[in-house]
């Protein structure tokens, strides 16, 4: 089996298995109150972690770069206008601009 086939097939299997665990284990059940109140807070916790690990981390060290400024500017745009496209385009444009200057 070639490396490419093992990489792609393995990645597909690993991802499918992980995405299956919750639905198989907890499917079709009544939600206890405590479960709902934790679930509604999962999204802010996970999304904030995704933002900071991608905007402020480079491998295993914390780093501030052009993309950090870009993401901040994108955040300001979506906060002001609610436009997701405006947010990502601003982030990309400022990051690209700062790199071109730097």
């Amino acid at each position, binding site marked *: 089996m070639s490396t490419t086939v093992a990489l792609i097939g393995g990645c597909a299997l690993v991802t*499918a298995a992980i995405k299956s665990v919750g639905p198989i284990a907890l499917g079709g059940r009544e939600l206890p109150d*405590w479960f709902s109140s934790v679930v509604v807070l999962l999204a802010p916790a996970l999304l*904030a972690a995704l933002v900071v690990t991608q905007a402020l981390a480079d491998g295993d060290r914390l780093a501030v770069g052009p993309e950090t400024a870009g993401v901040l500017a994108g955040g300001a745009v979506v906060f002001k206008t609610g436009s997701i496209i405006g947010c990502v385009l601003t982030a990309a444009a400022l990051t690209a601009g700062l790199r071109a200057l730097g």
Partner: protein
Amino acid sequence: MAVVESPAAAPEAPPTFRDGVRAGVPFAVAGGLVAMSFGVLADTAGLSPLAAIVMSAIVYAGSAQFTAVAIVAGGGGVGAALAAAALINSRFLAMGAALGPSLPGNAASRAAQGQTVVDASWALAGRGDGTFDRNLLFGSSAIQYVTWVSGTTVGALGGDVLGDPENFGLDAIYPAFFLALLTSEARGGRPLGVAAMGAAIALALVPVAPAGLPVLAASLAALVGLTRSARAAALSRSEP
């Protein structure tokens, strides 16, 4: 959870699959740009265009794909790449557990429905009371899948013309995309506090834990929901 204006705001008309597609469009456009940079990365890492496209089509998990390909391109083994992909994807354990009770059918059917979870579709499908709308989940995921695969195709075939994706700031798109989702999720004091706590947990772990684990660990911040006041707030939201 997500504030989806027209479809979710009208209680008498439950969202349709088409509403889900519509809600997913902005994220699909952004995802398509990120997919282009994945196609370019895969090309420079030595993957054939067909391999890159097949990977996007059957894995459909952006950050795991980037990580796995980057590790192999850097000389790492397939085992290390798969372990890292599993860690990066570990947040889907938390998302899947949250979604599970909203999925009908037998175990195989629920597992199949669970495959449609990507970050944006999961967040968009949340009704704000701990349950999830399947039409919003499937619709928003479907449109994102289309642009994910087509963006990869453009990047993999046109990598030589496009050049380094970082020159276009494409690496800023993913975090900006998550930040856009976060602004619709973290309204009010408690969600904002939990977001700050999740960010702090993740940042504290970045220097010491393998990539992916800091994000999974951030889900611990949601345990704030176990406090009495949070449970009372959730209960009052779920009442008609």
